[in-house]
């Protein structure tokens, strides 16, 4: 689905592609920094201490989430500057791309990159021989990973929209909600062999975020009804 999003909405406009790639780049940098921190922490600690390693991992995940959001903010700042430049350059005084579109594309960029990093090694291994969950792990590993990745990509997209909207209108609580939601989703994945605990709430949260983003982008129940009934 994420690829479909990309093909239908982004691939047409070159500016959007650039914003997408730049968004993916920012996510990548945030990942880099967070794994650097984690790596240092791991090296500095005792590798045989299991609970400590788990704790460090949790710490790494939380830190990474915070860094991702920080980079989203930085990216927002960069895009603001870029919009001013584009407006100055355009012929009729208005930017060829609005901040909401940029928010959407940035969200998709983040999401795609995070999804790719989560999934792609899995996919490569899935091509090879083997049995899923042979050591007593869940047999639904691939399936749940796929769903989780998809929900994460969508969530990133919606968070992008919400986040940018919050920054635009200076509503800090919106931003805080996004950060908290991200932390919550990541935290939920901790109870992961118990898939009910992580997938279902994530989807619920995604639905909430989707509705919120839709409302923010100017949609309404009326529009939705009209669209569905093809009026």
């Amino acid at each position: 689905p994420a690829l479909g999003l990309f093909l239908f909405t982004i691939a047409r406009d070159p500016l959007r592609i650039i914003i997408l790639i730049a968004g993916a780049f920012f996510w990548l940098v945030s990942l880099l920094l967070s794994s650097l921190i984690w790596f240092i922490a791991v090296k500095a600690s005792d590798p045989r201490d299991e609970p400590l390693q788990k704790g460090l991992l949790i710490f790494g995940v939380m830190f990474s989430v915070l860094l991702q959001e920080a980079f989203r903010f930085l990216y927002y700042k960069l895009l603001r500057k870029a919009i001013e430049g584009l407006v100055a350059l355009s012929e009729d005084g208005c930017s060829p791309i609005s901040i909401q579109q940029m928010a959407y594309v940035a969200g998709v960029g983040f999401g795609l990159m995070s999804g790719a990093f989560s999934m792609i090694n899995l996919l490569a291994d899935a091509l090879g021989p083997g049995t899923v969950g042979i050591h007593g792990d869940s047999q639904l590993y691939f399936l749940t990973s796929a769903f989780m990745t998809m929900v994460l990509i969508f969530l990133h997209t919606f968070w992008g929209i919400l986040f940018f909207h919050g920054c635009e209108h200076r509503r800090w609580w919106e931003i805080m909600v996004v950060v908290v939601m991200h932390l919550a989703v990541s935290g939920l994945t901790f109870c992961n062999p118990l898939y009910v605990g992580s997938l279902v709430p994530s989807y619920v949260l995604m639905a909430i975020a989707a509705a919120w983003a839709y409302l923010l982008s100017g949609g309404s129940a009326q529009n939705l009804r009209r669209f569905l009934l093809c009026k």
Partner: protein
Amino acid sequence: MITFMNNSDSEEEPCNERTSLMSAESPPVPSYQDGLQASEAGEAQAHRKRRTGSSRSPNNIADGDMSESGVPVRESTLENEEEELTLKYGAKHVIMLFVPVTLCMIVVVATIKSVRFYTEKNGQLIYTPFTEDTPSVGQRLLNSVLNTIIMISVIVVMTVFLVLLYKYRCYKFIHGWLILSSLMLLFLFTYIYLGEVLKTYNVAMDYPTLFLVIWNFGAVGMICIHWKGPLQLQQAYLIMISALMALVFIKYLPEWSAWVILGAISIYDLMAVLCPKGPLRMLVETAQERNEPIFPALIYSSAMMWTVGMAKPDTTARGPSQQTWDAAEDGRENHRSPSHADSRMSETRSPVPTRPISSFEELEEEERGVKLGLGDFIFYSVLVGKAAATASGDWNTTLACFVAILIGLCLTLLLLAVFKKALPALPISITFGLVFYFSTDNLVRPFMDTLASHQLYI
């Protein structure tokens, strides 16, 4: 210069092509290409072909879009408009460059992942005589540095040689060289490549069929690259040549040497393009002085140029239009790739009278598009291919390098728009790529592996 031309194999003659390409291009763009070309002896031929290729992609796309910009309407503020247009349509050009670079990388990565041949160590090129199979780390490092020095000096010698040839108007020699190298690239490397691919997939093919296929491929390639042909076909050929060259590099360069060479090439590129005494710069300046196309075979003048010319036999009309568009084009071309500047276009462009722009000119304007040297293609693909081949984090690292290179390309194009002169395309992208490769391989991979094993998501 964004347009690196190909750094062909060391096996071939030095890449004079690179340097030659440079001059062919509009003078503002020099530097990249020359540097690259010189280094690779064998590749030079391959490069030449490539260079022309790179320019083509932007042209094709630009064609349709540019005319709509309505630039030609305003004559008085042509310069300003051109600047605006340059920046405004920068996005389009960037994408025009993204697509061939991405395609090339995809081809290289796909081949590396599937065909075992290109990751086996079957010896080294004579340009990298020092082996890396030494027991101690220090010795290995030393060997790779020595390899790099030899390679870079070969490239420099080739570039200077090319510049000298160009200065003393030994055109026939350069033409012959280019044709020879492209012949070798098209036939020999394709034969090896096809053989390996068939072996991997266990598909049998008899010699007559093989001969027919390769002959057709090679002949059409020669015609397309050195003479006339549809733009997209030419671009496709240039991409394939770049990919082949990159694959050869990946196979025959030992590991540490490859990374050091990549770093050294970007530094060299930076110097060759920006220093006043740089060979690439001299090449471009000489070409500009003489106002002549450098090597018709090498110039990747978009086929558009040809077709436009043929469609409108009124050459006199073309002349002024070319000139008027000069200003615009120079701005654009500088950005893109010094490598393949249409020699023709650059030549006609030298004088820049401000004349009314007819719609015809618009068409030509669009053709210019963005040009990127083939050498750049090759080195980007080498980086990504090496990441795919040797990284243990496999796809993550490859993906990270890919994104890093694209962002580097974006930034370079942005700088091009700001500075309006030829800039090296390699340094920023390669730096990003190297940084991301090493950091992803060593830092991100353990993190992601641990996360994946617990199925945590960040």
